[in-house]
């Protein structure tokens, strides 16, 4: 990918991130932080790509690539469970007919 179009992508993504959460109520701050923590768990994909591209005889790179996938998988899985657990509590509340704020 050429540097200039990457720069455009960075810029658009930054504005998107800003706009998407601009009007989040305080009550959802923690779940949202946790949710965005889950989304950067996509780093797992990057870890899989570098580990997959490493020649099978390069032990040092294999070890570090392995760590990258391990940590990325933990970030994604842990981030999801924690977020889901937090949000599940809000749902039980909604069942009682309370309106969200």
């Amino acid at each position: 990918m050429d540097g200039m179009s990457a720069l455009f992508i960075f810029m658009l993504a930054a504005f998107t991130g800003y706009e998407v959460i601009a009007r989040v109520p305080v009550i959802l701050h923690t779940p949202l932080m946790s949710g965005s923590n889950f989304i950067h768990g996509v780093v797992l994909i990057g870890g899989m790509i570098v580990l997959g591209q490493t020649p099978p005889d390069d032990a040092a790179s294999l070890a570090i690539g392995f760590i990258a996938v391990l940590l990325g998988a933990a970030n994604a899985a842990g981030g999801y469970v924690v977020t889901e657990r937090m949000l599940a509590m809000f749902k039980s509340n909604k069942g009682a007919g309370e309106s969200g704020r």
Partner: protein
Amino acid sequence: MSTFIQFVYFLVTVAFIVGLKAMSSPATARRGVQWAGYAMLAAVLVTFYLPGLHNYGLMITAIVIGAAIAWYLGKTVKMTDMPQMVAIYNGMGGGAAAAIAAVEFMRADAVHHSSVGLLAALGAIIGAVAFSGSCVAFAKLQGVLKKTYRVPQQNNVAFFLALFTFGIGLTIGFSSHPGGFELTVFFLLALALGVLLTLPIGGADMPVVISLLNAFTGLAVGFEGYVLANPLLIVAGTVVGASGTLLTLLMAKAMNRSIRTVIFAPITGEAQEAEGEVTGSLKEYSPDDAAATLRYAQKVIIVPGYGMAVAGAQHKVWEMAQLLEEAGVEVKFAIHPVAGRMPGHMNVLLAEAGVPYDKIFDLEEINAEFAQTDVALVIGANDVVNPAARTNKASPIYGMPILNVDQAREVLVIKRGKGTGYSGIENELFYRDNCHMVYGSAQEVVARIIQRLKELEA
């Protein structure tokens, strides 16, 4: 095949953004994270079919081990320990980004454009800082690390360490085959930088720090996405980097502190010397006294803080509130934006206990009501109700908006002991004439109040 995979990545990117948007409204939040979850699963599955990859055995082993441990811990951890779990999972993401950069540096066949070398180095530093910084944040929240540490000339040392590390990073990024020693020094320095930046930061600023480190990891992931020429990583990482930065700013604003003062002039008890003498004395109530005071009030506002979270007392607190309502007392909950260890921490706990949204109020909504309130019941909160923030210019929390509990006719404070709060600042509120202290764990005190309330009804 490759086009199909890129198209799936595209759909995943859309799902992440839509999911994040859905997560910012209570009605759709749960659906949002589930969409993002399915998208993540799809992304992982199609990645296995990328052409030219090897080492599938190692890959699957790493995924299974990492995901299983994290899944198990995330499922079993207590609700009150959630903040440190977010911190540690975030650190792992940062560590993964740094490790990706390390492998890219070591690739013999890598053709480094200048921009790739630069962003790989930046992503590596930011990722490593997020990793070690999150580990420190985890240790502090978990109570393993209780004190704050500052090295002499803290800010200058940090500045030059950052500059020096970045310099090494650039030489590594631009050289075609960096040595193992150079790489080791680079990553050790970057890790040290993360520790150095977070060690001096006190508990009161922890929410802001976790949010900032979360944004850091997002940014690092975005940069490594550029190195790998993967738009999915670029967009997801940058979106998190930007939204995390905004969230950090919102939090810092609520505390009336800039990011700069959080990082470079952290709240510590040391500033205490400058403060005036606290006058008055601490007056103690038994839980029975507190029960009677609450029972015969017209209107009670409950202000929960970290003490309630530690004691896991949210269910008892709601039971007590319901008993009071049955007795005809009007009960509301007031939540300071930075009460607890993360913004919204108290909302999550009260929601867990089943407190309806319409009884929970933000600072701006409820602050005017304290003057018409009979009893303000503070449960394990300290700095967020400290009047010094309004009046004492020498106080390190001067200027932070607080809940005006001191304007209530009477203030009851449930507190574990006579010590200062997490940030180490004395609270003159406790010495006021209209304030009474109830000492003990929130769990036990509230249980005793509940028992007494039942006796009063009988």
